[in-house]
């Protein structure tokens, strides 16, 4: 046993071998930040959100805003990924979409934007249309008659 350890230690003494060993150790984890992996994630669901925390408990105000906007439109069934749990994914998603911040929202595999953009799309009505394009009927469309009735 100790002989194995000694041999390994000797092997790792050279700088090149050491970094190769470390690379081998981390290669599995690094995969979650790769283009191929993220490409698969964003195309897996009609709505995909990369955020801090989870929809039930967002860990940042911007991520929370995105969750609340989607909820208003009745979008509850979406895939979300917590970047706080995966540093590779956190950096990988920024590289993937060339977007420097979290949260990030994808519709049918296409990058839509972060919190600011989703909020403005919500305010100007574009979000209802964009959801429609991917086959999701916004719950706000069904609520419209009610608010009209309230006004009368």
């Amino acid at each position: 046993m100790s002989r194995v350890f000694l041999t390994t230690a000797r092997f790792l003494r050279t700088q090149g071998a050491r970094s190769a060993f470390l690379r081998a150790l981390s290669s599995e984890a690094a995969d979650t930040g790769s283009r191929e992996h993220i490409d698969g994630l964003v195309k897996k669901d009609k709505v995909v959100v990369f955020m801090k925390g989870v929809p039930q408990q967002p860990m940042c105000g911007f991520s929370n805003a995105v969750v609340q906007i989607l909820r208003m439109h009745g979008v509850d069934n979406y895939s979300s990924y917590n970047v706080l749990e995966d540093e590779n994914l956190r950096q990988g998603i920024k590289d993937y979409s060339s977007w420097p911040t979290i949260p990030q929202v994808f519709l049918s595999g296409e990058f839509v934007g972060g919190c600011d953009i989703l909020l403005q799309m919500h305010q100007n009505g574009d979000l209802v249309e964009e959801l429609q394009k991917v086959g999701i009927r916004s719950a706000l469309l069904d609520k419209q008659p009610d608010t009209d009735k309230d006004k009368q």
Partner: protein
Amino acid sequence: MSITAEYIKEKLQRELEATHIDVEDTSPNHCGSAFNVTIVSAKFEGKPLLQRHRLVNACLEEELKDIHAFSQKTLTPEQWQKQQK
């Protein structure tokens, strides 16, 4: 070295030829980690929201690495005028 609202304002004004800029440091104690920005520029004309925001992000690429919260509104001069009425 912390980033100041004045610095962001100057840089955006220069690089995006903005005609109006509001920069508000919303971080606690104004420590330069959170900003609310409104930018009015003719360069935004004919560009969808995502592209406008990308222009701003590209301009502040280095700074955004140190800024924790960044909110932006991007308007064309025409949109800005309508909003003022």
